[in-house]
């Protein structure tokens, strides 16, 4: 559908104003909010995600694409809420203790929300216990931890251990990500999933919520 392709195209170029206008136009033309979200906004972000992974675009391009996605989401959210589209699940998100980097985490938040997952964003420099306490009090299915530094990655192990100590490890899935993080590291610390980018993180998060 041409208007959805245009939305995806403008999103990839970071043209927030154009995305907003076309999303409204698509709604006015009778397309459903979920279709616009999936085939317009998320489709565009996925393409950017692949390009970022292949080093064809860099952080600034991803950021402005995410901004354009947010602009489109602003129009869609009230429609999604009023159509009683249920939240798919809940995730507690944060950058681990000692680490102040948040770009990747912020992109994950956008992508999770795009998939209909409620996100409680704890920000940066988050203590392991805080991840667990929040997940328990909010009945979240997922804890998603980000780290940019090899110096702080090991704090992810502390999050897993904190969940075990509180006796809630089997009630949660723990996702990890960030530039230096790997699948081997994820396995070595007993976390559940490693994903290499925000788009695949949101795919995995949705699978967890729907399991």
């Amino acid at each position, binding site marked *: 559908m041409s208007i959805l392709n245009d939305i995806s195209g403008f999103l990839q170029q970071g043209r927030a104003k154009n995305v907003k206008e076309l999303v409204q136009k698509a709604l006015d033309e009778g397309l459903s909010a979920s279709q616009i979200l999936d085939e317009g906004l998320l489709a565009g972000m996925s393409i950017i995600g692949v390009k970022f992974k292949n080093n064809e675009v860099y952080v600034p391009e991803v950021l402005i694409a995410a901004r354009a996605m947010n602009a489109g989401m602003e129009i869609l959210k009230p429609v999604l809420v009023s159509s009683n589209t249920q939240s798919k699940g809940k995730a507690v998100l944060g950058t681990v203790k000692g680490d102040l980097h948040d*770009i990747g985490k912020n992109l994950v938040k956008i992508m999770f929300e795009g998939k209909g997952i409620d996100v409680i964003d704890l920000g940066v420099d988050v203590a392991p216990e805080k991840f667990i306490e929040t997940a328990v009090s909010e009945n979240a299915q997922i804890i998603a931890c980000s780290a940019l530094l090899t110096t702080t990655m090991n704090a992810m192990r502390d999050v897993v251990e904190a969940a075990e100590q509180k006796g809630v490890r089997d009630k949660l899935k723990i996702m990890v990500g960030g530039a230096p993080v790997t699948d081997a590291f994820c396995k070595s610390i007993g976390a559940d999933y490693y994903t290499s980018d925000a788009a695949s993180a949101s795919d995995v998060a949705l699978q967890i919520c729907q399991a």
Partner: protein
Amino acid sequence: MLRLKLLACKALYRECSLLSVKSKNYIDATYLQQGLHDTPSLLHDALQAEIDRIDEGKDLYSCKPRFDKDFDAIILGYGLCSNAIVGLSSKKYDIVVPRCDDCIALFLGSYEKYRKYFDAHSGTYWYNPSWIENAYTPSKENDEALIKEYTEKYGEDNAKYIMEMEHTTKNYSRCAYVEWDELNFPEYIAYTKDAADYFGWEFDLVGGNSAFLSDLFEGNWREEHFLVVPAGKKIAPEYTGKLIEAEE
């Protein structure tokens, strides 16, 4: 005397150059552009390509290996650097790697010093001569230049958004200038102090030294501080505190 092939990041240019000249060993240096750690897989591929060329004697930036002029080892002027060094391997030479997360420990003089400072002040942006000369460092002038570049590329609104989101400078609370006795640059200390004022950070002047890097250059490769990867093996991550180990 050892003949050592150094592959280092330009973020260590002055420090490694200084130690190369002073070393009792022969140091044959190649420097790669700073910043590749932002794309760890690219840094990995670039380093492996350099090592492959050196292995084959085809690297035009290295002394041609002949009879008495071959290398005893490749030494890396890198830490984990976002795990870019994981998987590196030479078919012909041992590779020696300092056990540290990144170059900051090499400027400070030990990994222990780096960890102590980091644990006390995790929101620190590091400055020193080689960083200021070879890398982007936050400053009023650099921020203004970036905003101009982003505005030209993406428009004013997007430029403002990128600066807001990309600049983790908003999450930092201090900057530290690492000073070596041998590298006297009062203008760089002043540059760092200006950045501290502009961003509202605390400024710290931290004394570093060449101890860690010297050990690398002089062949003092103690197991607790260095990994020696035998030819044919590769660098692997290690999660009990040693950071790296060698594996098949």
